[in-house]
């Protein structure tokens, strides 16, 4: 495990860097690679859903199942690309884009009332009834100028988060 980083050549690192729009520096990519190999316990070249669930801090996340669909079986390049939205250098659009993808579970490019309701359900568990959730969501959608029937597109998400002071950043430990 110790020298697994040596597998990654300068050339590879640059390629990965291009793939994630240079949101990570080379050292960060090397550390991410070590971590990737560590998570890929069986050494098959990708991280399975079960291996992700081995990390209790991840498994306990209410959105774990939803995120699993996005990260299951990613190769290293796509793994880095997924995480790049969490880089401090990523723009608000990129972060909004990732949030949009979490909502848009069927990947058809639009988020419906029900999509939001489902995510809301994942996060609140049994603490809120369906009626409560629907009521809140309808009210807030109308206040924001949408309706229960309207579709939200990526642009809408970008607009919604444009003014937000959201801090979605993860520091990559570099040793």
């Amino acid at each position, binding site marked *: *495990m*110790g020298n697994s980083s040596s597998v990654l050549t300068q050339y590879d690192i640059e390629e990965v860097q291009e793939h994630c729009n240079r949101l990570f520096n080379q050292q960060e990519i090397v550390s*991410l690679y070590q*971590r990737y190999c*560590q*998570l890929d*316990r069986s050494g098959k070249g990708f991280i399975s859903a079960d291996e*992700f*669930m*081995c*990390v*209790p*801090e*991840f*498994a*306990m*996340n*209410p*959105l*774990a199942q939803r*995120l699993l669909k996005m*990260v299951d079986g990613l190769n290293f390049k796509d793994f880095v690309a997924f*995480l790049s939205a*969490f880089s401090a250098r990523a723009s608000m659009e990129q*972060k909004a884009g*990732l*949030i949009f993808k*979490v*909502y848009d579970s069927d990947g058809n490019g639009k988020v419906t009332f029900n999509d*939001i309701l489902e*995510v*809301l359900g994942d*996060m*609140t*568990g*049994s*603490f*809120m009834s369906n009626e*409560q959730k629907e*009521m*809140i*969501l309808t*009210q*807030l*959608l109308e*206040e*924001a100028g*949408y309706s229960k029937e309207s579709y939200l597109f990526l642009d809408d*998400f970008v607009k*919604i*988060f444009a*003014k*937000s002071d*959201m*801090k*979605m*950043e*993860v520091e*990559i*430990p570099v040793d």
Partner: protein
Amino acid sequence: MHESISKSEDGKLYSSVNSELDADGPIIEEYLFSESLPQSYGKLHLRDLIDISPFLTEAAGAIVDDSFTRCFKSNPPEPWNWNIYLFPLWCCGVVVRYCILFPIRVLTLTIGWIIFLSLYMPVHFLLKGHEKLRKKLERSLVELICSFFVASWTGVINYHGPRPSMRTKQVFVANHTSMIDFIILEQMTAFAVIMQKHPGWVGLSMRGLRHSRPNLNGELALKEQVLLGLLQSTILESVGCIWFNRSEEKDRAIVTKKLREHVHGSDNNPLLIFPEGTCVNNEYTVMFKKGAFELDCPVCPVAIKYNKIFVDAFWNSRKQSFTTHLLQLMTSWAVVCDVWFLEPQTLRPGETPIAFAERVRKMISDRAGLKMVPWDGFLKYSRPKPRLTESKYVFFKII
């Protein structure tokens, strides 16, 4: 009916609640619906509702680095030999270690076993009538064989603090890095231990014999296995060993009862418990199981810290069998380790066993320079229960 939706105090709608991992921790539901909830501050916007960034950040943070995996990561000593001057020296070292030291150590261990067995068997079978004498002799013999084991890795062990006494009604708890912890402590005093049923020869117990599971190494023939298993169980039985099975829930109640009986019985060997329940890499401590702390008797903390200068003593049971682990130790220069016997602690009035366990864990961690993490080591074997996820749920209050 007019309704408005409130945000919590810090302006964020979603804030995850730190989970309390233990079953006896505060009930999270009570906590959430208590009266002390932050009242409405500001107006909720759609943006706040769909802003799931705190959860995503947490999830990504866990993917990138998590304290749980770090507890079980082997940290091999830094290579120092990649230098044209040092490399030949290192090669000499390899030759010495494998061709001279290793055979000597195997010989030592073999002699140890021969002496041990030739004395143990007569003592065990001939002194049937003299229980007290037999027990005393067996105890010293177990200490003897453990000393041979320690000698077989040239164990340099510094014991600090007063030696453990043979008093009854006390229980020793130590942090756990490898099976060799047991041998190192056993060399001092014949402790009784509580052990998991390991597959393979390490802890092939009576039960293991009945089931005769295929062992991890695969090389040992079943016959040898049975023999070794018999040896292990007779010997460990003589110091008073309590077995348990991780996966069996009902075992727990039986073990608790046995522990109590052992501690409060007279003329038993002092009981040694590794409350972490799993081997940790000697840089962290995971949560202590509370069993050892509710036996109504003083708890004597033992802190063990290995020096990684020659070999990493962490037994990564997922990666290597115990045989490989022992071979690794026997081919290294030495196993250097510090053992501290700390001051006995008792349950303070009003203290829960969990708080007590945490206090003792802190003592051990501070003494041995280990970092404490809030994880249950058994998560290695199972996934977090849904109840734990539940504690992370958020809710909003509607006024």
